[in-house]
């Protein structure tokens, strides 16, 4: 069991240093990494997939793969870029297998599964009407996100919710920074149209 001094050391240590310790089999360093990044990984998956139940499984799988691949982490990039790349690859694989299943269902003449609707977990609010509106708004945003092509969606999520730079996003997606720029231009244009109803409400255009 680590002592208090070790705990402080762990909490203040950069993730890049922790992952080097994980590569040596340090499970305490791994615990700190999981606790530090679990929410961001979970939300990245949730926003990308739009399915709460799958998100937690995929988030666990992401950390599982990170543990296994810790030795292959090269200290040229940030830990989050590396972790998000694992996460995105898992999500894309999941989407592929879901598509395959859908085709199988189609050929087996089984009733097709509808696109999973995003579940929302809302913060506590005293007014139920506000809660309902917020839930509705969040649902519409989630639905609008789901209409974007996969690479546009992931680029937008990484920029908007994780604050990654174009350079970092390009490393996650394995493309150039200018490609990320055009992905984001197209994604924002599509979302602007999809979320126009909110723009009109808030700006009176």
């Amino acid at each position, binding site marked *: 069991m680590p002592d208090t001094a070790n705990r402080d050391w762990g909490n203040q240590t950069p993730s890049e240093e922790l992952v080097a310790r994980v590569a040596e089999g340090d*499970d305490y360093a*791994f*615990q700190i990494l*999981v*606790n530090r990044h*679990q*929410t961001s990984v*979970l*939300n990245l998956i*949730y*926003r990308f997939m739009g399915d*709460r139940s799958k*998100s*937690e499984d995929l*988030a*666990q799988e992401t*950390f*599982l793969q990170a*543990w296994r691949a810790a030795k292959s982490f090269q200290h040229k990039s940030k830990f989050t870029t590396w972790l998000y790349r694992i996460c995105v690859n898992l999500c894309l694989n999941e989407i592929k297998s879901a598509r395959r299943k859908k085709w199988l269902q189609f050929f087996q003449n089984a009733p097709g599964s509808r696109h999973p609707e995003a579940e*929302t*977990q*809302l*913060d506590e609010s005293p007014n139920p009407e506000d809660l309902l509106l*917020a839930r509705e*708004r*969040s649902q519409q*945003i*989630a639905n609008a*996100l789901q209409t974007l092509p996969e690479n546009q969606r992931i680029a*937008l999520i990484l*920029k*908007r*919710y994780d604050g990654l*730079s*174009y350079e970092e996003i390009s490393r996650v997606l394995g493309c150039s920074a200018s490609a990320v*720029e*055009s992905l*984001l*231009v197209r994604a*924002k244009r599509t*979302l*602007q149209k999809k*979320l126009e109803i*909110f*723009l009109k409400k*808030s*700006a009176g*255009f």
Partner: protein
Amino acid sequence: MKCQTIEKKLSAYQDGELSVLEKEQVERHLAGCHSCLEQHVRLKQTWHILGDLTEIRPTPGFYKRVSHKIGLTPEKGLLGSCWRNWGWGALPSPVFASVILAIGMLCGAYIGNSFIKTQPFHNVAAYPEEGFLSSLKVFDPVPPGSLADNYERLLSYNEGHIR
């Protein structure tokens, strides 16, 4: 710069990804172009609206589940730790279950046999083997102590009585 070029640059401008020169060009254009300025405001609002997507939190015990999958946390309970310490983890569970079942059947037959001996219908001559070996008769077509066996014994007992 033309409006078309500016519109493409607006996204990167808002994300703070333009060079100083490009940034100045965009700002100069926005100062004199109402439609581009309107588009700039709309884009900014869209970006702001996206922030209303609620954040979810991991369920309690997230790390525990991850570490359990990796094998960092031992299984709970005495049996789990014994299982690991004795190196039985390598045994596939169906094999273990089959062994346990077979042992259970043999023990059951052995115990059952010892009870049967006290029964009046028990034909000792038919089953001379004693102890553990006789318990192997559980695999016979008519195992000792079974309903069929008792029925056969009853018949032979009645026949002997009648004669």
